């Protein structure tokens, strides 16, 4: 399973999100390949899931991946809830 964490520049914020997603996945005992990138590169890749904010999700509307929206990148509870509802 491949998961992409996406932000506008693909550098800092998406990396923080990736670290938090990896933490949550460890808690959920799900193993996945998580990477981070910018929104333009993400449209050209084909992961299973894309995790991003509400604003960027609209730009990614054409992707074949399932888009998971997380608004607060630091709220582990929100990330956990979003992942649990989508991954099952």
């Amino acid at each position: 399973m491949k998961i992409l964490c996406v932000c506008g520049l693909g550098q800092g914020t998406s990396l923080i999100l990736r670290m938090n997603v990896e933490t949550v996945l460890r808690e959920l005992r799900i193993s996945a390949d998580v990477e981070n990138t910018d929104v333009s590169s993400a449209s050209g890749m084909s992961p299973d899931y894309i995790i991003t904010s509400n604003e960027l999700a609209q730009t990614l509307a054409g992707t074949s991946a399932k888009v998971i929206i997380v608004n607060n990148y630091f709220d582990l509870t929100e990330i956990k809830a979003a992942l649990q509802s989508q991954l099952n």
Partner: protein
Amino acid sequence: MDALKWVATNVFGTPAILLGFIVFLGLLLQKKSTSQLISGTFKAIIGFLIINAGAGVIVGALNIFEPMWKEVFNLKASSLGDFMGQEKFNVKYGSAVTLAMTLGFLINVLLARFTKFKYIYLTGHMMFWTTTIFAGVIVHSVGDVSFGKLVIFLAIFMGLYWTFQPAIVQPFMRKVTGNDNIALGHTSASVALLSALAGKYLGNKNNDSEKIKLPKGLEFLRDSNVITALTMGILFLIGSIILSTKGTPGAEELIAKAGDQNFIIYSIIQSFTFAGGIAIVLLGVRMFIGEMVPAFNGIATRLVPGARPALDCPIVFPYAPNAVILGFLGAFVGALIWLVILGNTVSYVFVPTMIVLFFHGATAGVFGNATGGVRGALIGGFITSTVVAWGQYFMVKMLISSTIPDTAMWAADNDMFILGPIVKFLAQLFF
């Protein structure tokens, strides 16, 4: 002795290998699997080598942009002169930068552990650029410096900056986010502070930017590649149209570079090439920062109880999405004004660093809105472009002209411009 010398040249003297080694250690400390060890280390090495490739592409496009706008303003074609450029600079000083960045981070962790400033700086790509630019300033002001001295000086300076910058911004950060859990760790800190202060005195807090409805059509502005190409595209387009009608020998010479292609089309392609170059560099940076920062974070959280992460500027964007757009607009309009003013007064062709105009302008917008509403956000954006335009002029012309002015034109930004003279002064004092 021979073995030591071999290691010094081939490991510490080859930045890509040194970086791979640091990432390898980081992954080892995190107890990653063998497969992750290999892929992480390789990605770090490849990433570093990619940066040079992207820097070459960017410089290629700037070599059209600069003479074009010089001709528009009728400036004498005094070129940047002799300088090393990012590629050569990386070969010679890349290892010192890499090592200083790593040691600087450890100093940050130690300061957080033993003082009341519990901030851990985690915006890895900015750590890399800031250290690179300051290394460029030092080498320019004091000439060839020894590896050891450069590393020690930079590590201490960066360690202090990464610890205290988030602390200084935190009172306003609390106002923006409404809590005390996260801090801003980014080189836009200076303009965030300035615009929060300007917003307080010049703005109107009651007119909060989030009350207004902005058109949905502006969403594309959140994609960094799009903003880069768009801003440069507008400038290349205007420049090429003016040049096409000018008919001066200088203009003819530039137009000839396009060959059979229409000059305006050729110029527009340059703006996309420039955006492509930036995308390449960022890909390279992402490849090693993505391995390094989680390792840094792992070390920090284990060593520093109650550590607060200082993070990249987009973390403040969700708190005031409209202010993000207003801040960028203020910065963009300001950049156009300063481009014309700088060209006509000090004869400098300002390269508006789009990523800076957006990310820094937007951050300034959010902070300006927190104290001064819509007006505060717009003023914050304008302040950003002012610091960026004049800062770039001073840095490229005076602080870094013999080393990496090419990098300073698009990768240097607010805090670096403000701290640059201090770095120069300290370097002259200590070296």
